[in-house]
C-alpha cells in the first residue's frame, strides 16, 4: 500500500505548531457579547425569587435571563450527543427553577465585556429554598428525596428509567445459569471496585460563539465532536426549528468525549437568538472542573468463579453508576462496564450483568474515553489478577488459558463473533517487552524502594453497531485535485489526515492532492460525529467506498472523452486509458471537461453504517517503583501492544496509545474527585486535580500486533478509547506485588500506600 500504513504528518500539523489562530476563541468576531453563567451554590434548591434589576443597570449589560424567561411548557431535552431518539433522558431545561447540583446554571448574563458581566453576576440577588440533597450514590435509588420530581421528565427509550425512584436506567442481561455455575466453582472471588468522576481535562475548555447568518439563521461555531447532534440539541433547547440552526466546528483543543455533550453551546445560542447579536462563552478551568461532564463514578461488584486449574467459568457483575444531576450518557456508559469486560473471558459458561444508574445532586456525568469500559475492565481485570494471586498463577498464563480468541462467539458482546483478534500475540509480546520473566512479581531495591510489575488486558468497540452513521463526499476539482468533505470531527486525533490517507490509497494519488473540509451541518454529509471509537472504522469505510465510486465516475467521463464504454477503460490515478490501447486522457483534462457542457457528476457521497462493532484489543504491563516510606508510586516503564486492525497511520495510532495510557495512569494514581458535605467539588482547578506531568512518567512503549478486520477500511478497527483501559488493573496489581496491599478504589494515593504499608509491617 502506498499511503495507508504510512506515518504521514497530520495535515494541520504545522499550522498548530506555529500557533495559527484556528480555534473557536481565536476566530470569534470582535465585539461579541460576553456570556457568563450565574451558578447555584447549593446542591439542591428551589429558586424562590431572582432580582436582576440592579444588575441590569451595570453599564454594558445587554441582557440577563433566568428561569422566568424560559417559555412555560417548554419540553425538556438532553445535552448528550447521541443518535435520536437518545437513550439519555430528557431531563433538562435551559434554565430551571429547581437547581440540582453546585454549579447548576441559575442565570445567563450577556454584556459588552468581562468586567461588566462579572459585576452584574455579583449583583443578581437570588433567594433559594434550600433542600436536602442526595449526595451518596449508594442511597439514591428509592430515596424519598427525588432529584427529578417534575412530571414533564421524559425517557425516550426503554432503558429501565424511573425518575420517581432516582433511576436513570436499569438493565439485566445474562447467559447460562450463573448461580448454578458459581456454585460448582472451586473458588468464587467476591470483590467490590470503585472509580471516581474523573475529568477529561482537555487543554481547551468548553467554548462557543454564535452569530446570525444572512438568512436570519443561528450559526453556532463550537469546539464540539458532534456538529449534527449539537444542531438538534440547540434547536430543542431554544424550541426553534432545526432548519434555523447551523453548527460548525473549527480546530478543537482536545475532546476525549467531553465535547460529545453540548456543555457550552445552548447559552450563547439563546443569547444570540434573543438579541440577534454575536455572543461567545468561554468556560473557565474552574467551570470545566465543576460544571461539565466527567466520567461516571461507578461501583462494581464482581463475582468471579473459577476452578483450581484456573479455568474461569462464570462472571457475575453488578454496576452501580452515578450519573449525577442529569442523565447525559447515563443509560449507555454503564452497559460498557459489562459488555466490554466480560467478553474478554470467552470460555466462561455463564455470565450475568445487572446495572443501576442513579441520579444524585452532584455534577452531571458524561462521556469520557473508555465510556464505562474503563471502569468495568478495572473491576474484571483486577478480579482476574486477584484470582491469579489466590491460585499462585502467573497472570499472563491465566489469561492464556481463558481469554477470547479469533472466531469465538462472545455472548456478553451481544453474541457477536470475534472476527479479528490478535490479543494472544499482544499478550506474549508485552510479556517480552516489560521483561516479565525477570521482574515478576517484585524486587526489593534495598533502599526503601520496591520495583514490581503488573498487567491487564482490554477491549473496546469500533462504533455503535447499527446506530452510528458515517458519510463522506468526494469531489474532483480543477487541475485534478480532490476535496473530501466529512461530518466527523478531528479533535487532534488526526482523522482529517487518516481519512485522506484512505481516499488517497483508493484514488492512487498523493495525500497532498486531497483537501479536507469538516465539519459543518450546512455543508457536510451526515455523520453521527466523532465518538464511540467510530471515525476510522465507520467514516473510514464510507471514505473508501466513496473513493471507489468516484473512480467509476472518473472512468465514465474519461470514457465519454475517449469515445468508448466505461468498462473499456482503466484509471491509474493519473489518467484514464482505453484498455489495451494507448489512448488516454489525464485527470486534469477530465477535471476540465467536467466543468464544460458536462452531465456526469464527479462528486460522490457515500453513507455507511455497520451491523457489527469489531473490538480492538490490547495488553498493557506496568513496571513501577514504590517508595515504601512515602508511598509514592512512579511508573518507570509502561509496555503496551495494541491490536487496532491495520493502523492507517502508525504515528498517530502510537500517539493515541501513549496519550491514552498516560490518562489511565493519571486516573489510577493522581486524578481524584471528592465532594465536601455540601456537595461541592474540591478539585476545582489544575492545582488540585493533578493530571500527569512529564516528570510523572518514565517511558511508554507501544507496539502493534495487527489483525485484519474485513469490515473495516483496509482492515482497520478503532484505537482512540481502548488505550486508556489497561493501566488501572496493571498498576494496582503492581502495587499489590510490591506491597501486598490490595486497592480497589481509585486513585491510589501515596498516603494510602504509606499508611497501609506501615500498618502491615507492624
Amino acid at each position: 500500500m502506498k499511503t495507508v500504513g504510512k506515518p504521514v504528518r497530520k495535515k494541520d500539523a504545522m499550522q498548530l505548531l506555529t500557533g495559527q489562530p484556528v480555534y473557536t476563541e481565536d476566530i470569534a468576531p470582535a465585539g461579541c457579547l460576553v456570556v457568563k453563567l450565574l451558578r447555584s451554590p447549593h446542591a439542591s434548591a428551589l429558586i424562590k425569587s431572582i432580582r436582576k434589576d440592579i444588575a441590569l443597570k451595570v453599564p454594558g449589560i445587554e441582557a440577563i435571563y433566568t428561569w422566568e424567561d424560559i417559555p412555560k411548557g417548554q419540553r425538556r431535552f438532553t445535552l448528550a450527543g447521541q443518535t435520536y431518539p437518545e437513550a439519555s433522558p430528557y431531563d433538562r431545561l435551559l434554565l430551571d427553577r429547581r437547581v440540582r447540583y453546585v454549579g447548576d446554571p441559575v442565570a445567563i448574563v450577556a454584556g459588552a465585556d468581562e468586567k461588566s458581566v462579572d459585576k452584574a453576576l455579583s449583583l443578581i440577588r437570588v433567594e433559594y429554598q434550600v433542600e436536602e440533597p442526595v449526595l451518596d450514590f449508594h442511597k439514591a435509588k428509592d430515596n424519598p428525596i427525588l432529584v427529578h420530581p417534575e412530571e414533564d421528565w421524559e425517557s425516550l427509550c426503554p432503558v429501565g428509567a424511573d425518575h420517581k425512584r432516582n433511576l436513570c436506567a436499569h438493565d439485566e442481561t445474562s447467559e447460562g445459569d450463573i448461580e448454578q455455575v458459581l456454585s460448582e466453582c472451586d473458588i468464587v472471588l467476591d470483590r467490590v471496585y470503585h472509580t471516581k468522576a474523573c475529568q477529561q481535562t482537555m487543554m481547551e475548555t468548553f467554548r462557543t460563539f454564535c452569530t446570525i447568518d444572512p438568512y436570519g439563521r443561528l450559526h453556532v461555531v463550537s469546539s464540539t465532536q458532534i456538529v449534527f447532534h449539537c444542531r438538534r440539541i440547540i434547536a430543542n433547547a431554544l424550541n426553534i426549528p432545526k432548519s434555523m440552526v447551523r453548527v460548525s466546528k473549527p480546530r478543537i483543543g482536545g475532546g476525549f468525549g467531553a465535547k460529545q455533550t453540548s456543555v457550552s453551546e445552548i447559552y450563547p445560542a439563546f443569547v444570540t437568538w434573543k438579541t440577534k447579536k454575536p455572543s461567545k462563552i468561554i468556560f473557565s478551568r474552574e467551570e470545566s472542573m465543576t460544571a461539565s461532564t466527567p466520567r461516571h463514578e461507578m461501583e462494581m461488584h464482581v463475582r468471579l468463579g473459577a476452578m483450581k486449574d484456573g479455568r474461569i467459568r462464570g462472571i457475575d457483575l453488578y454496576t452501580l453508576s452515578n450519573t449525577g444531576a442529569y442523565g447525559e450518557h447515563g443509560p449507555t456508559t454503564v452497559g460498557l462496564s459489562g459488555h466490554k469486560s466480560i467478553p474478554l473471558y470467552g470460555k466462561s459458561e455463564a455470565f450475568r450483568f445487572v446495572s443501576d444508574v442513579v441520579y444524585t445532586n452532584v455534577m452531571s456525568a458524561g462521556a469520557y474515553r473508555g465510556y464505562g469500559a474503563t471502569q468495568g475492565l478495572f473491576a474484571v481485570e483486577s478480579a482476574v489478577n486477584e484470582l491469579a494471586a489466590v491460585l499462585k498463577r502467573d497472570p499472563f498464563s491465566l489469561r492464556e488459558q481463558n481469554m477470547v480468541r479469533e472466531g469465538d462467539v462472545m455472548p456478553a458482546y451481544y453474541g457477536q463473533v470475534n472476527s479479528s483478534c490478535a490479543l494472544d500475540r499482544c499478550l506474549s509480546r508485552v510479556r517480552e517487552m516489560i521483561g516479565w520473566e525477570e521482574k515478576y512479581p517484585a524486587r526489593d531495591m534495598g533502599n526503601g524502594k520496591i520495583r514490581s510489575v503488573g498487567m491487564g488486558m482490554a477491549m473496546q468497540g469500533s462504533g455503535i453497531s447499527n446506530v452510528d452513521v458515517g458519510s463522506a463526499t468526494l469531489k474532483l476539482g480543477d487541475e485534478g485535485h480532490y476535496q473530501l468533505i466529512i461530518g466527523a470531527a478531528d479533535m487532534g486525533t488526526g482523522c482529517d489526515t487518516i481519512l485522506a490517507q484512505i481516499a488517497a490509497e483508493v484514488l492512487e494519488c498523493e495525500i497532498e492532492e486531497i483537501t479536507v473540509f469538516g465539519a459543518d451541518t450546512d455543508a457536510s454529509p451526515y455523520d453521527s460525529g466523532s465518538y464511540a471509537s467510530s471515525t476510522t472504522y465507520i467514516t473510514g469505510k464510507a471514505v473508501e467506498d466513496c473513493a471507489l465510486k468516484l473512480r467509476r465516475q472518473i472512468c465514465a467521463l474519461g470514457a465519454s472523452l475517449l469515445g468508448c464504454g466505461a468498462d473499456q477503460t482503466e484509471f491509474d490515478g493519473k489518467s484514464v486509458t482505453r484498455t489495451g490501447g494507448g489512448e488516454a486522457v489525464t485527470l486534469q483534462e477530465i477535471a476540465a471537461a467536467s466543468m464544460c457542457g458536462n452531465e456526469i457528476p464527479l462528486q460522490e457521497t457515500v453513507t455507511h453504517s455497520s451491523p457489527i462493532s469489531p473490538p480492538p484489543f490490547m495488553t498493557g504491563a506496568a513496571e513501577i517503583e514504590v517508595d515504601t516510606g512515602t508511598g509514592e508510586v512512579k511508573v518507570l516503564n509502561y509496555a503496551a501492544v495494541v491490536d487496532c486492525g491495520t493502523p492507517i497511520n502508525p504515528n498517530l495510532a502510537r500517539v493515541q496509545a501513549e496519550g491514552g495510557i498516560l490518562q489511565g495512569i493519571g486516573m489510577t494514581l493522581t486524578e481524584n474527585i471528592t465532594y465536601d458535605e455540601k456537595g461541592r467539588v474540591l478539585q476545582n482547578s489544575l492545582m488540585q486535580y493533578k493530571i500527569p506531568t512529564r516528570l510523572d512518567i518514565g517511558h511508554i512503549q507501544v507496539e502493534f500486533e495487527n489483525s485484519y478486520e474485513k469490515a473495516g477500511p483496509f482492515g482497520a478497527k478503532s484505537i482512540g478509547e481502548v488505550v486508556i483501559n489497561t493501566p488501572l488493573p496493571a498498576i494496582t496489581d503492581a502495587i499489590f506485588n510490591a506491597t501486598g496491599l490490595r486497592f480497589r478504589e481509585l486513585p491510589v494515593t501515596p498516603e494510602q500506600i504509606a499508611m497501609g504499608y506501615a500498618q502491615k509491617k507492624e
Partner: protein
Amino acid sequence: MLVNIILNEKKISADVEPDLLLIDFVREQGCLSVKRGCETSNCGLCTVFLEDRPVLSCSVLAVRADGKRVTTLEGLKEEAEEFGAFIADQGAEQCGFCNPGFVMNALALFRENPDPSEEEIREYLAGNLCRCSGYEGQLRGIQAYLEWKKSNRV
C-alpha cells in the same frame, strides 16, 4: 495607564487597565497563539518571553512589561517551524492547543542549554501540560531535533 511594550520587535504604546494581564494584552494585539488553559499558573500554555526569559503571561500584569521586550510564537516563526517539524514527524502535536506554550518553552530550553539530557528536558518542560500525547512523542521529537542540530553543527 500608558505602556510602551516592544512586542515581537514592534513598538506598541497602549493605554491599559492596571489589572490587565499580559496574556490578554498580547491577544488583544493579535498574538492569538498565546492560549489560556487554566487560571492557576499550572498549565504552561500561556508561555511568552519577557526580555527573552519564558514567563507565564497569565501571571504577569501587562504594566510589568512596560519598557520591555515581549516575544510570542508569532515573533519566532522560523525557529518554531524548524523545531515544530520534528514534533509533526511524530504526530505529537495532536490537538495543538498546548503547542505554542510548549514550543516557546522548548526554544527557551535550547537557548539556555543546547545539549540537554533527557532529565533536563523533562524538568525544564515540567510546567507544560499536555493531555493528548503522553509526552513520549514530544520527547522523541525533541531528541530527534537535537540530534539534527548536532549533526548540522559539525
